[in-house]
């Protein structure tokens, strides 16, 4: 039914029920379904693994249906109005500086929220179906589904936030839920450390976000995105003020989106089970940073210098992360670097002002990344190893995984006509329009490198023969199939086809639909960007075919040093660790010493001298109860007596008092 409505809306059909339904209300319901699922699981079905998983899946499905209807309404509505609705007001008060100070909670229905809501819920649903089989034999299945439902709720809440306060709330919830997902295999010290690292590195961003929000509130006395969007350009705050705000917000976004130099957490975070890694890299934790930039885009648009910083950081991260992916020896970490690189590309696009193209690439990237991680998961499940050197020869043994991953890799590499092609083309054509040659070079390089590292991954995993290892029989490898295969198949279809939604010139297509500023930009498909993207992608594939077809080179010795430096975050990672281990912890020990010996010691010696002067017996320990009560009573009596004594004549009395 929602699909029919959606199709009708896409055709611009008469809008029967769509006008009478409130999209915000539907969004509110959609948002709360995963939370209700969580409550149902915790309250009722926690004992049953299957039942809990299905509760989560069904509620997410309901949420998806509602989200699709919201999207249909948004598409059908001719004006694409932003609709804000406030549901709950936490707090209303005098702020002392502004007339009114409100913390409120509501939902917004606009193109960005509608599209992203559907993406989040859809991918979460497919990942949950996959996890049902993937984690079948693992302990903690119920815990995992709880964390996924919680994570979905948080990501959806983030998507539909109407104001910075609400955004911050869900932002933090998303951090916590990702912490739970990454720490899922908590017995493993690596997973526990990765989870802590994630929360700490992004915690730096969280502090920046809080500071940015405080500063925005201090200058504008407002939290709401919709009203703030118009006031940035009002001249109330100068260019420097806007720059500070935008940079603080960008710091938070960069920490979440794993942009240099705060990218160090993401390659570790994929220690999580593959479905969790897929969720984190495609729609929740890592992507929430980019979503923040898209949501706060009016602020960035008002500050060109902040856009510049964003473009430079994004472009740099995109290229260096792609080089790192080329040299990485572990499958999931390779995909993590690929994610960092693609998110860097989105940042570059947004920084160059290509809002629509950036949002579109975020959209297509979600599907391909989820697909690749799920494929990696099914390989890991069979091979029990994450090292690329130990893989190989899987093409014959794992047909469906091979084909779906091939589609995902080609789509991600930007091969025509799969989804990545259309979004990369959209970004490139905007760069060409702007005559920004550096940005063009970066996009081309990233496209080329992504084709290269993805072909390396495919050849190493699927080509050649399976390496023999101890206690491992390659003949037992088979296609996992079943629900895992279904999810991967559906994601492959989406990865291949999602780009069609953004073909230039499509009526009600992505490019005409999600625009900033709000006027749609008509754009026809031009040949130059198409040819460049195709050329870069094909060149990358060819080079990959030459280099890795016979598995001649598993790692590229030229790139390794660059990759090693980047993997260590230009040794910032080690720098952070050193700062903590050599700086903070010894400082802490020193402060602890000062606290115990100097400050405490001073008072202790003071107390000791008083004690030796009055020579108290250790009577507290030996005191019987009667004496104890007597002591308290005597103390009270003494106070009363003092009070009475002071109140007797001699103390001046004042007329008028009773």
């Amino acid at each position: 039914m929602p699909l029919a409505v959606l199709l009708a809306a896409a055709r611009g059909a008469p809008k029967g029920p769509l006008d009478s339904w409130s999209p915000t209300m539907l969004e509110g319901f959609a948002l709360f379904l995963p939370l209700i699922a969580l409550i149902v699981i915790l309250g009722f079905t926690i004992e049953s693994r299957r039942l809990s998983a299905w509760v989560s899946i069904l509620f997410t499905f309901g949420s998806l249906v509602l989200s699709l209807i919201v999207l249909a309404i948004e598409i059908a509505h001719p004006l694409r109005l932003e609709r804000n609705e406030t549901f709950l007001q936490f707090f209303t008060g005098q702020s002392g500086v502004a007339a009114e100070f409100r913390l409120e909670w509501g939902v917004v229905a606009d193109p960005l929220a509608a599209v992203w809501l559907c993406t989040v819920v859809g991918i979460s649903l497919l990942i949950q179906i996959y996890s049902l089989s993937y984690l079948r034999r693992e302990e903690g299945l119920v815990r995992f589904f709880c964390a996924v439902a919680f994570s979905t709720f948080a990501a959806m809440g983030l998507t539909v936030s109407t104001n910075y306060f609400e955004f911050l709330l869900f932002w933090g919830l998303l951090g916590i839920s990702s912490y739970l997902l990454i720490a899922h295999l908590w017995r493993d010290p690596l997973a526990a450390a990765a989870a802590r690292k994630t929360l700490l590195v992004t915690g730096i961003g969280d502090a920046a976000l809080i500071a940015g929000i405080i500063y925005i509130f201090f200058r504008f006395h407002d939290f709401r995105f919709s009203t703030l969007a118009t006031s940035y350009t009002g001249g109330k705050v100068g260019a420097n003020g806007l720059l500070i705000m935008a940079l603080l917000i960008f710091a938070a976004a960069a920490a979440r989106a794993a942009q240099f130099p705060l990218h160090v957490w993401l390659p570790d975070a994929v220690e999580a089970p593959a479905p969790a890694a897929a969720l984190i890299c495609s729609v929740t934790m890592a992507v929430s940073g980019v979503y923040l930039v898209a949501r706060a885009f009016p602020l960035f648009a008002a500050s060109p210098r902040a856009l510049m910083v964003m473009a430079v950081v994004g472009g740099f991260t995109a290229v260096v992360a792609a080089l790192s992916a080329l040299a990485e020896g572990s499958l999931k970490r390779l995909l993590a670097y690929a994610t960092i690189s693609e998110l860097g590309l989105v940042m570059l696009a947004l920084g160059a002002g290509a809002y629509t193209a950036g949002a579109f690439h975020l959209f297509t990237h979600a599907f391909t990344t989820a697909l690749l991680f799920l494929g990696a998961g099914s390989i890991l499940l069979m091979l029990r190893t994450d090292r690329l050197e130990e893989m190989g020869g899987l093409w014959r043994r794992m047909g469906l995984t091979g084909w779906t991953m091939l589609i995902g890799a080609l789509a991600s590499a930007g091969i025509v006509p799969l989804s990545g092609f259309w979004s990369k083309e959209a970004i490139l054509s905007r760069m060409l329009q702007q005559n920004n040659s550096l940005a063009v070079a970066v996009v081309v390089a990233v496209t080329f490198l992504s084709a290269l590292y993805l072909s390396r991954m495919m050849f190493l995993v699927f080509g050649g023969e399976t390496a023999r290892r101890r206690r491992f029989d390659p003949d037992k490898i088979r296609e996992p199939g079943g629900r895992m295969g279904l999810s991967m198949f559906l994601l492959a279809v989406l990865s291949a086809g999602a780009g069609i939604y953004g073909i230039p010139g499509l009526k009600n297509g992505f490019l005409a639909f999600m625009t900033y500023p709000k006027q749609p930009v008509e754009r026809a498909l031009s040949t130059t960007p198409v040819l460049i993207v195709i050329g870069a992608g094909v060149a990358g594939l060819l080079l990959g075919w030459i280099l890795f077809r016979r598995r001649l080179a598993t790692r590229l010795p030229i790139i390794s040093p660059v990759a090693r430096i980047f993997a260590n975050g230009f040794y910032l990672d080690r720098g952070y660790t050193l700062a903590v281990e050599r700086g903070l912890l010894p400082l802490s020990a020193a402060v602890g010493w000062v606290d115990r010996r100097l400050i405490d010691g001073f008072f202790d010696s003071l107390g000791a001298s008083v004690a030796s002067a009055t020579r108290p017996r250790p009577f507290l320990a030996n005191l019987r109860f009667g004496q104890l009560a007597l002591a308290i009573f005597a103390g009270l009596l003494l106070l009363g007596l003092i009070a009475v004594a002071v109140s007797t004549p001699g103390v001046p009395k004042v007329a008028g008092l009773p």
Partner: protein
Amino acid sequence: MRIFMLGVQNQPAFGNVPELPTLLLSGIVWVPTIVAIGLLLFPTRTEVHRERIRSIAIGACSLVTALAVLMWYGFKDQGGTFAYDENRSWLPSLGASYHLGVDGISMPMVLLSSILFLMAVLASSRIRERVKEYFFLILLLETGVNGTFSSLDFLLFFLFWQMQLIPLTFLMGIWGGARKLLAAWKYLFFGLAGSSLLLIAILILYYTAPAHTFDMLSLRDAKLPVGITSLLFWLFFSGFAIQLPAFPLHSWFVDAQAEAPAPAAAVLAGAVVKLGAYGLIRVNLGQFPDLTNKYGNFILGAALVTIIYSLVAALREDDLRRIIAYATQSHMGLVLLAVSAAAPIAINGGVLMMVADGLTAATLLLLAAALYERTGTRSIRELGGLAARMPRAAVVWTMAALAAMGAPGLAGFVAQLLIFLGSYPVHRRGTLIAVAATVLMAGLMLWTLQRIFFGPIREGYGRVRDLGSLEMTYAVGLVALVVLLGVFPAALVDNINLGVLSLLSRGG
């Protein structure tokens, strides 16, 4: 969607509640003492006797909590006056009266302390020796704490202040840990120092005010010489700062937290140190708003040092109880930051922070006691991987740790955000430093959590039991309140806001 609009109006969302008797506050304050004196009549020879004494104490605390909830339920905007006002003649010749009342600032504190005392008494099942004395003292302590929060007369305030000092000293000195006598003496020493400063301040205030009265409300409007007010401000400030505990007068606190019996430590961190912050808001801010502004930078400095110093000292600390104590101290530093800003939003956050920290600190302390009971150690190095054996404890601890680091959806988040939002316009750099310090707090809490519960389980803990049903009752009860305040802070903040506005608008 109007049905979702809860709590928008300033009135409580429950409509008109019939007028409650003015004895309500007296009930909250004196029921524990009356029951404590009644306890003296019961024998303690057998286990059944001791069980009966504990039941009576639990009953008394439940009754107080019920009264406190009733107080919250019936609390209405009094337009700047105090709710449940009870003014009786006490020492008329002295100008002292028995004057109790709560406003939006003290009401949450009384509610918090009543709930914490109930949880503490529930958690006292491990006390086996001198049961009667123990409960007698805890109930007396409750009277002292609740009385201090609700008294509106300086003499009465001082009397109650003393009344929390003595019982806690004995609780610590008799039922405490290995270094109990040192901790008890130190607590008594610092407590007496603080309260004598307060007494001097109160007496000076009494003798210099034109009308010789101890009534807080009439003294507020009194005109005093400028030199005297500065002196008074600093006397009160240092008296309360000791209790807060603010750097460098804090050294009693961590020892007391580490050595007191766990229920008393929970009450100490949850309610007793809140008296200091409450006094700062009620007396220093309410009585001398101009001076608070004037010395704001100094207070800010003390707040920042307290926040950061505690966190840094906690990172390398090995004793679990001391880590929790440092975290509480850092939160109280945030409250001090709110006081230094003296802005309405910040004070709202400060009061909420006291409630949030009271709940989380009590949860963490009681859980730490449960861990100690099972593993026999409080050293973090010797713990590890306990989530395998104690999943319930791991979940509750995680929630409380997240609340302590100000994670959203939990009570600490709104409190922290309000403090930062309110104090930024006044102290810009200082607020940013405090915001940056949240990363340290997050690091501390996560690292502690990881070292206790995650990783491979340590040898010897293979047969550790998970939390029992009684332990779950109070742990989940406290955490539920933390979540409730996190998702619906309006339950308290609307009331707090009214109190804060009338407090700040009355002065200056």
